């Protein structure tokens, strides 16, 4: 009865429409890139298992519609996330300006201690660039976030940024993980731990293997 993974995390992609959230996700999970993607309606998700620090982490990545109108729906998913990607498009000043608004939404609706990183996507579109790399760095610094410029098109920093956010989430849950490491060889103990983790949030979060 070997398990396919040790822990499950939920990560969330947010940012304006058209910044490339779905493209980042498809590049990461399927290593595919389509220049013209179908718009996301409401929410969608994909899964991938990666190994970080000897721990098999199953990540469930939630992709959201960027239109403001959908926020009544998408914010419902914030509270289930342990890590959040805030994405803007380096060729759109407006999408960068809006990061402030997205951050304040996260503060309002996401659980305390949620890990965040800032992503400037479409880094391959250098000739259309409206947001300098240092502006991204500056903003990330202000909010105490890590920062990556990525390109789903050329596969720049995709794996790196997803791995980094996963590491941050793992670190944030280090206490629980110590238990996991010392008892990792023991499947039964692991299951018990997961039961414990599931408890504090009550029956609404009955999926055992995640910290919600």
């Amino acid at each position: 009865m070997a398990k396919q993974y040790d822990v499950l995390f939920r990560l969330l992609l947010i940012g304006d429409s058209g910044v490339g959230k779905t493209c980042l996700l498809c590049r990461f999970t399927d290593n595919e890139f389509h220049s013209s993607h179908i718009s996301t309606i409401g929410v969608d998700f994909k899964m991938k298992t990666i190994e970080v620090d000897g721990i098999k982490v199953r990540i469930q990545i939630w992709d959201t519609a960027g239109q403001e109108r959908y926020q009544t729906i998408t914010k419902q998913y914030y509270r289930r996330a342990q890590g959040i990607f805030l994405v803007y498009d380096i060729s759109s000043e407006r999408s960068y300006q809006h990061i402030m608004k997205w951050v304040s939404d996260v503060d309002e609706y996401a659980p305390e201690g949620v890990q965040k990183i800032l992503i400037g996507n479409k880094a391959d579109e250098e000739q259309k660039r409206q947001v300098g790399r240092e502006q991204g760095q500056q903003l990330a610094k202000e909010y105490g976030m890590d920062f990556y410029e990525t390109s789903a098109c050329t596969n720049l920093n995709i794996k790196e940024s997803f791995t980094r956010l996963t590491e941050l989430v793992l670190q944030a849950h280090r206490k629980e993980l110590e238990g996991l490491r010392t008892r990792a060889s023991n499947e039964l103990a692991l299951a018990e731990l997961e039961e414990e983790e599931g408890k504090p949030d009550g029956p609404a979060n009955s999926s055992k293997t995640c910290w919600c």
Partner: protein
Amino acid sequence: CKVEESIGNAVLTWNNEILPNWETMWCSRKVRDLWWQGIPPSVRGKVWSLAIGNELNITHQLFDICLARAKEKWRSLSTGGSEVESEDAGLELIKLDISRTFPNLCIFQQGGPYHDMLHSILGAYTCYPPDVGYVQGMSFIAAVLILNLDTADAFIAFSNLLNKPCQMAFFQVDHGLMLTYFAAFEVFFEENLPKLFAHFKKNNLTPDIYLIDWIFTLYSKSLPLDLACRIWDVFCRDGEEFLFHTALGILKLFEDILTKLPEDLPAEELFASIATIQMQSRNKKWAQVLTALQKDSCEMEKGSPSLRH
């Protein structure tokens, strides 16, 4: 070929018998049966238009006026610099979304044959009832209509379709009302597929996760387009209930697998599955259940846990 012959016969029946006598014939048993088998593509647009109706009394002239206003706004947007009012953000979003509507068909993209039509309809709609504006998902609905109707008629059907209670609730993102729809859906889900219902509950899989996409785009995004059109056929006949009816048919069809929808979904099987769904729960029909739930505001508290608050 037999299939071609029967389609040919159906076209004749629709054109010569049903359409000229629409008011008296459309709800007859014979027409309903023929309807269920799929409307032939050549008469589909006409039938949809008639079935959707024009409660809003939109004329071609009104469409022209709305379109002219939209064009005016676009012009001022393109000259007005980067500062865009939030009400005009919708117009920008339309441009972005048009190229992201059925991208694999390559007909709505810039330079494609249907690009301007889609642009016109969505733009005109933002100038029609200004309280709704453009909401993502609408581009798919407009696109399906364009494939079956002329621009002005597609606009009329589009506006009237979005004016229906279920579509209005979703596109206005009326959260409370959406929860009520989900709750009504769950009543029939539990009734028809108790095992799967329990399985979903246990795994915290709430209907919003799959229904939002299906309802917003009327299945046009998730089903193959020709099959989606057949769902639309019956949706035009039976109304919102059929959207939830179809959802249960899909869930039943994939009760064993329930991972992803395969690319080639057999229409016969899906319709057979839909046909076996009971749209009655304790002697109550869909509309009665929905109304009861709407009235009972306390019931809303028990809606999908993930969308609560």
